């Protein structure tokens, strides 16, 4: 499944400072759909190069990270259970505090 993943607010530093990743994520054998839960573990294995604790906590993202599926807060689409579709854009953004 073709997806565009974007990292911002400092999270890009965890994946070699690359903000936009066009990726191809294969469904697990026997699975019919790809959920955000599946994608998070795929990202942790394939894209996060350092300090994974700065990206995840337990099986979700760490506090202070907003997840947007097609420009919409994942809270509105079912969080970890959100089902992804071909060409979806998923943004991971760390909240900023500076000013």
């Amino acid at each position, binding site marked *: 499944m073709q997806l565009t993943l974007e990292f911002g607010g400092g999270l890009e530093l965890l994946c070699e400072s690359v903000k936009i990743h066009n990726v191809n994520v294969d469904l697990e054998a026997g699975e019919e759909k790809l959920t955000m839960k599946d994608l998070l573990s795929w990202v942790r294995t394939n894209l996060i190069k350092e300090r994974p604790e700065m990206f995840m906590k337990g099986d979700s993202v760490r*506090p202070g990270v907003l997840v947007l599926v097609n*420009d919409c*807060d994942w809270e509105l689409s079912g969080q970890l259970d959100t089902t992804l579709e071909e060409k979806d854009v998923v943004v991971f953004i*760390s*909240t900023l505090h500076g*000013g």
Partner: protein
Amino acid sequence: MVSNVSGSSSRILQEEIDKLKAEKSSIEDRISALQAQLNEEKDKDKDSSTCCFPSSLSINASSCFQHALSPDMIYRYSRHLLLPSFGIEAQSKLLKSSILVVGAGGLGSPALLYLAASGVGRLGIVDHDVVELNNLHRQIIHAEAYIGQSKVTSAAAACRAINSTVQIVEYKEALRVSNALEIVSKYDIVIDATDNAPSRYMVNDCCVVLGKPLISGAAVGLEGQLTVYNHDGGPCYRCLFPTPPPTSACQRCSDSGVLGVVPGVIGCLQALEAIKVASSVGESLSGRMLLFDALSARIRIVKIRGRSFHCEACGENAAFKQPMFQKFDYEKFTQSPFASTPLKLNLLSESDRISSKDYKARVTNGEPHVLVDVRPAHHFKIVALPKSLNIPLSTLKDKLPAISSALKEEEVTDSSSGSSASLYVICRRGNDSQRAVHYLHQMGFTSARDILGGLESWASDVDPNFPTY
């Protein structure tokens, strides 16, 4: 001789310039204070004259105009009044509104300038900090003449210089749970232009408790974020971020850097959102968030969750009221301090550390040694001590052989003494150098020691001409 003469004459010139600048800034302060006094007097006169007029006259005056704008005001705000979607109604509301800006830094600077210019009735400024030279690249409300003075004094003078008809209220103190309720309650709208996580939670909770809309902006590096909380049924900050992030995820401008224009853009947009809310025009960003990426020139506006039923601050059954707010420990909650003072790590025992003065003495005595600078490469390019070896902390693991060979080389050069070369580690402030020494000890470099306080202590204790950043 010639250079001496020109040196002393340029010193005299500089002294004269400094003296005049100080005089100028004190005169500006005086003008600003007198102007504020004059405005208050005018307001009083206006009130009393309205009372004195026979009622028929005042009815006549108000029947001609459905608003209270004076001819001067009509002229000043004419371009606002010409906008069909803004016009006299919105401008009148703006003139009656009061807005509190928390923080007169990178975000607060442009926000305050635009709010003063656009004719907000009363503008409050809260900040405890003083103006520093390294603020000026982004905190555009402050001028060189105000270095060392309160940011609030400086910002208030700049606002009054633009629009003497706006009432400016100065709060030269940090916003805390002890004073926040009293200050915030006097305003219709709050702008969060702070720079740290505990302040952001505190300002949010205070706005929730008092029912004030919060225009929240943030900027670090080359990115900015903006939204409106606690307004129009939308979420509050805690609905979005119920649990504070780990301290290590909170970047500060003083560590990560920030391009001046980036908080400028976000601060301008904060002023815009505040003006829209104050004058009830347009659609605010409540329930949406604007994400700004300066490097790729991209602005993305995303839909965020609505108000959370379970939110501890604004939820249906939230017990978070004024007494709880006043007792809440925000530094403990977020595990990070209000002040932007950098962290002071104490990882090593005293015997594993030397002062910058001590290091200087060892260099002067010709002690054979290797100095490893563990700052990131782009820091090293700004300034570094002579003969230091740059091995950023993140690459230390892979560069141990380079340290071994540098030590061997040092021993060969100094074969006369026969003793082995020492290993010192330095960084910007003396935190990463401790982490590096801690790791080096584990990897067998048992003699490694770090320089206390890093390059900042070198600049303050050894070489005052050494640049700091």
